[in-house]
């Protein structure tokens, strides 16, 4: 077995803990070795700092290019999620669903600016970290970023894919097997056998840190290059410190079964034909990590924004056309219905592969379900796909005026802090970020240098 060790996956709650980063073939070899999944029966434990006894988990589920608004709005006056053509695929979770309407993108951001404002609140991304990182840092956990086709292989990691920022733009983990290795790192290791490599790695990192410090001093008169080195120095220090944990106590003693991940063996995860399988596998990994309490903040970045992915792949929504165009840019009724069908399909996978998996007693809080102690935030950077705006400008469709807004759906109980229902507000997107943080027990009162306030209406 080819063990690679990375401090990023350290679980420092246990001083003798291991750091293991497994490559895909190693992960699959582990599965083949017969390690079994078992949920330790534990007394309810506090998973997160913050004075709350219930665990809290966050999944950000990003969909590019908005939704056709007439398929989002409930079809009856005063209707809820069950009456919304798109959201109704999640109707079985209506008791823990919160539809938020009336939100405009912050900073007047549109197009690429809106993508990078999605998680940062600033047009173009600003200088700060995205909200997942801010929440994770406050909770003392790692923010994981997974991605199903998050960028175009031929174009590379361009601005179309700049969603999550941890100091610099984060390229999501594309391979579900690598995601599994990352999210379940340390499971199954013997805590009584300390790994000497940790100390050796620390020594190597300390040497690099000293070199960078010396270089930073030398570059005193070259501000741009010094900034570059200081960023690098901060990164090395972060690696040396690990994720600062102490907050997560896994409830599993071994790697859980991940059949959807196993099914990808031998397949190319960036092959568009495998998109459906890859998405399912990522959702499976995130869901099981939440059940096992080995991760608590995960962003799943679906597709890059101008994706020409043909949605006719096996297991997909059955629309053999490009996601970006013509599907998301359709103006005719038939085309917009197809767009609704496609975006609904994403939600159906979220339901089948993630939400349902969380519908069981929380091992860390058996009086509630895992889903009750989770917050899922479904979001997009565009209001109506064809109209291609990111605010609340009304639209005319077939002679009727429709209100528009950025799609925002919260699912799960957020550990008892989320009020279910449909809420109409007039707010900027940065306030939604503050709300997500507040629901995770983290106070964020400025974003991008501007004051923000959680949306009290959706909070219990």
């Amino acid at each position: 077995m080819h063990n690679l060790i990375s401090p990023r996956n350290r679980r420092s709650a246990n001083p003798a803990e291991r750091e293991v980063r497994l490559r895909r073939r190693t992960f699959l070899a582990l599965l083949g070795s017969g390690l079994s999944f078992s949920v330790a029966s534990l007394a309810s434990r506090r998973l997160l700092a913050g004075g709350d006894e219930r665990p809290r988990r966050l999944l950000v589920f990003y969909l590019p290019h908005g939704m056709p608004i007439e398929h989002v709005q409930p079809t009856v006056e005063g209707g809820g999620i069950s009456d919304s053509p798109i959201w109704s695929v999640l109707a079985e979770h209506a008791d823990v669903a919160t539809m938020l309407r009336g939100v405009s993108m912050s900073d007047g951001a549109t197009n690429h600016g809106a993508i990078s404002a999605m998680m940062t609140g600033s047009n173009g991304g600003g200088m700060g970290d995205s909200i997942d990182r801010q929440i994770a840092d406050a909770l003392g956990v790692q923010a994981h970023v997974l991605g199903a086709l998050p960028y175009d292989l031929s174009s590379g990691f361009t601005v179309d894919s700049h969603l999550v920022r941890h100091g610099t733009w984060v390229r999501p983990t594309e391979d579900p097997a690598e995601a599994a290795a990352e999210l379940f790192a340390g499971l199954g290791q013997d805590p009584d056998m300390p790994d000497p490599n940790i100390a050796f790695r620390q020594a190597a990192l300390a040497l690099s840190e000293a070199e960078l410090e010396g270089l930073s001093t030398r570059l005193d008169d070259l501000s741009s290059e010094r900034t570059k080195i200081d960023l690098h120095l901060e990164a090395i220090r972060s690696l040396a410190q690990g994720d600062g944990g102490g907050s997560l106590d896994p409830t599993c003693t071994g790697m859980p079964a991940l059949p959807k991940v196993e099914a990808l063996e031998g397949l190319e995860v960036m092959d568009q034909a495998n998109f459906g399988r890859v998405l399912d596998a990522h959702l499976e990994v995130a869901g099981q990590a939440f059940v096992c309490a080995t991760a608590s903040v995960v962003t799943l970045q679906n597709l890059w924004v101008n994706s020409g992915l043909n949605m006719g792949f096996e297991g997909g929504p059955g629309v053999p056309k490009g996601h970006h165009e013509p599907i998301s840019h359709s103006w005719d009724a038939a085309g917009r219905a197809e767009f609704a069908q496609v975006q609904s399909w994403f939600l159906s996978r979220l339901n089948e592969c993630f939400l349902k998996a969380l519908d069981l007693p929380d091992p860390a809080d058996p009086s509630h379900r895992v889903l009750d102690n989770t917050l899922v935030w479904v979001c997009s950077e565009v209001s109506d796909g064809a109209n291609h705006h990111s605010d609340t400008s009304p639209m005319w469709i077939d002679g009727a005026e429709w209100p528009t807004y950025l799609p925002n759906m919260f699912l799960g109980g957020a550990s008892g802090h989320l009020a279910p229902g449909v809420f109409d507000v007039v707010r900027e997107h940065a306030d939604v970020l503050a709300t997500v943080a507040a629901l995770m027990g983290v106070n964020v009162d400025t974003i991008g240098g501007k004051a923000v306030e959680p949306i009290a209406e959706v909070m219990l």
Partner: protein
Amino acid sequence: MRLPHALALALLCFSNFACKGSAQSDSWLESGSDDETGEVELGCENEELGPPLLRRLTRDEFSASLVAVFPELGAQWDGLALGPDPISERGFSNDAALLSVGEQVAEEILASAEAAASELVSPEVLASLLPCSVDTPDIVCAETFIETRGRLLFRRTLQADELATYSDLFEEVSSTSDFATGLRWTLVALMQSPHFVYRFELGAEGAQGERELLDWEVATALSYTYAGVGPDEDLLARAQAGEFAQAQARVDAAAELMGAPQGEQILSRFFAEWIRYGRAGSKIKVNVETYSQVREDLVEETRLFVDRVVRQEGGSMRDLLTSDQTYLNAQLVSYYGWGEGTGSAYTSQTRPEHYSVGLLAQGSVLAGYAHTDSSSPTLRGLLIYEKLLCKPALAPPPDVPSIDPPELGEITTRERYELAHAGDPACASCHQFFDPLGFAFEHFDESGRYRETEGGLPIDTSASALVGSTMLSFSGLTEMAEGLAQEASVHACTGDNLERFAFGGEVEGCRALELRERLVKEEIGLADYFVELAGADGFARRSGPN
């Protein structure tokens, strides 16, 4: 009306022509024309030195460098954990400003270093890597290794205190483990050191406040620019002997490096990133069943075409735009309808007249700049406008409406676009500059194949467009390509992009004004221009501190 997002990026459908390009881009609008001054349009007005830089190795450079310093890893080493490089607005993956090391990249570098180091100290490899490790596995053995391989990794001789630091690390680790483990973690530290991870172009301060690159920095710049890998011992020794203080010596070395196998890929990479013809390989064409079978072949066709014209034949931009040759395998011959081909090998073919000429007629370009179900005059026009004429990318307005979908047999693509864009003054204010360029392509469908008519309707490819200071009129792609080949601004723009690619960033002016003039006057081919940049003052010197 339907308009794809990528298209929308180029629209400004309101009254003001608000260009939000870079300052460098703005200069293209302000450059004097040769009509007014009689001077050649160079795309820059003065010569400037670039700033001192730390250039992080790209993914490919990192991997190539490790394999070059440690051939024991094997040419097929697959332990690199670094992800794709960030891409600049110009499409380049080697932009020094974007290649930073944050947590994700730092972790990936660490993982890569650990993978490589583990491989190198494995029992199967260590004995050949370091023969003294067999009989005398001690600090002397380790220090010899650190000194020799460290010099190649850092691309200079390690200073005494650096050698001591790494020796101390080795002793610290090996004293509680063994020789191999000590060496392993010393290697990890060397490979993740900023002295390996960054190409240094800082220099030492000279008399005028400007900076002269140190000899090993020049060797490093030569080797990475012209071969994509770190300098070997020979190049370092020549640099140390002062050889590259002479401009011609640098040019000769650059030519030598470009002639070697690794150097042969450099200009291929430039054109692939600049023109982005590789995107054809991930496109879907819903109405063309065979497209998915040939899309990678289309990309290979263009790679071979560019390599032949630019590297093998030393051609100019004129040659690239007007060559009647291409490289096809049997599948592509059949795909294009040029007859029956045989074999999987790519062979030189002369393009039939109706299949036009040059780079713009390459199937990968035509398919890559089109929609899934139709051609796109705007996308193809923007290719020329932004890439060949260096016009600034335009900020899209909010609420860009979509363009109507194709109606085969009812209306041509050109007519559909003219209705949408030319028919609305707000849209026409921008689209007038690039849509006409795109109309020239209309005899080629979304899959890169020729069509005599569009759904039975006649196709009109005649148009006029402002190119530089010239109103270019043409009918069809061949005439337009030939017209573009005459334009100084096209040659100047190409030179500007080559310069940015070579130096990993941009300056307000040119780094080699006289050389740019020679390129624009077509006194020098593209490959020679690129090589001669090594002789520019700006290659071995940098401006003062910012």
